[in-house]
């Protein structure tokens, strides 16, 4: 066991084994991962600690149809700290029916490269 302070504990979700990982910071400030049974656990745990990426899904009001809402999501995960800034952008969207599934409602959200797309068809 290496010395250090545990700064995060997480279950690896890359395979069904589900290793119980711990991320430690040693005296020199270096991050270490423990509990991984394979090599993939290390980048997974460090990624979660240093730059976690998340997709996000919500729904927005749609005009010109009986359906009230059209559901939306991002085409790719974005840095976790951008969830609320991107939600604020999405909240401004007022698409007009018809909207097709996969239609881009907001391209390149906040410069992340991820688009906001409709996830259902509303006619």
């Amino acid at each position: 066991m290496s010395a250090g302070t545990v700064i995060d504990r997480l279950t690896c979700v890359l395979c069904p084994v589900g290793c119980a990982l711990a991320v430690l910071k040693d005296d020199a400030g270096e991050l270490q991962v423990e509990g991984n049974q394979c090599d993939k656990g290390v980048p997974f745990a460090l990624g979660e600690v240093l730059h976690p990426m998340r997709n996000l899904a919500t729904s927005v009001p749609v005009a010109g149809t009986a359906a009230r809402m059209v559901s939306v999501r991002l085409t790719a995960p974005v840095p976790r700290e951008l969830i609320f800034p991107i939600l604020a952008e999405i909240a401004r969207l007022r698409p007009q029916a018809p909207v097709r599934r996969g239609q881009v409602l907001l391209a390149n959200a906040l410069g992340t490269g991820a688009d906001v797309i409709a996830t259902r068809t509303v006619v």
Partner: protein
Amino acid sequence: MSAAIPRQSCDVAVIGGGPAGLAAALGARRAGASKVLLVEREKALGGILNQCVHDGFGLFLYKETISGPEYAERLIEDVVKEPIRVETGAMVLDLSAERVLRINSRAGYRLVEAGAVVLAMGCRERTRDQIEIPGTRPAGVLTAGSAQNLVNLQNLRIGREAVILGSGDIGLIMARRLAFEGIAVKGVFEILPWVSGLERNVRQCLLDFGIPLELRSTVVEIRGRDRVESVVVAEVDEKLAPVAGTERIIPCDTLLLSVGLIPENELARRAGVELSPLTGGAVVDETLMTSTPGVFSCGNVLHIHDVADWASFEGFAAGERAARYAAGERGGGETVSVSAASNVRYALPQRVSRGLAGVEWSFRVRRPVRDAVVEVKGRTSGRVYARRKFPRLLPSELQKIKVGPAVEEDLEVVSP
């Protein structure tokens, strides 16, 4: 004199148009049924998928992760390409053991005689009454799925400060959704020592937003006159009884319940289908046929799934078997019974034709366990038919185990 009630017939009637029922209708067509009827009580097909706007669906069926509405639309597109008679806004009022459906719809009331029936009605959420929370009866107590419908489909603001009881996936996903909407989630309380939902959801729905999760604790009282004003939470002991002196008042105006799902089997009961007290769904054989001949079951009305894809796979299988039954195919013969033992909560199918080889069981455990060896054994002989090592088994995850050799006796599925 009243006019005679119209009578129609079909090969396969599927009740319910969610992930299981859509797949069942497709499965019936693929197996050659010519007249397939799909009945859905909502105005649109898709079932609960329509309100599940989060992603994580389709990984097994479509090999990519998509949202619930996208998953539904893709299945629906396949259904409408087929000559399947789809009836929405239609309610099956009754189902007899002779497979006569009584249907009420905009077209009127009629009887449909089906060669085979697939039950795919899904499930309901457990409510406050079923878990008997004491206190007043104010507005603001909602099941997590109702809240999901109100927020995602109807754009309603359900409250300002919420507490969530139960750590099922819908509750966790709604915690994040409420955080998105600027509603303060004061905490998620789970009576068991472990989370009911997926660990990924604990991290991405709670930890990401600083929402506290308290295990071994529950809501012991709801307070408020017209609207919820607070809830009282308390820790519980090993017997899940509240520990006196640990009560804490949490001000909030909304309580969401994510405390379990119950298969919706009223129609199955009317058709005389034998139900399992362990799953709340039908007792089925390897063809997913219930104890009522020609009546099949799949998806959440059979047992609760954690992944929609598996409900669909069950639907495809049930639809195919129903089509074959409608065409005159009969299994018949003797069956053996299969039970769950020790840490296995249930195993499905519960009946299997004697002499059949290559049967696969779905099962779920009661408690989390690591490095577990699961066995399928002869109940009296002790003969091991299958043995599989699992690095980890969780109550939240449905698992599978396959038996190679022919089954010759009553079996049990055992996990440490």
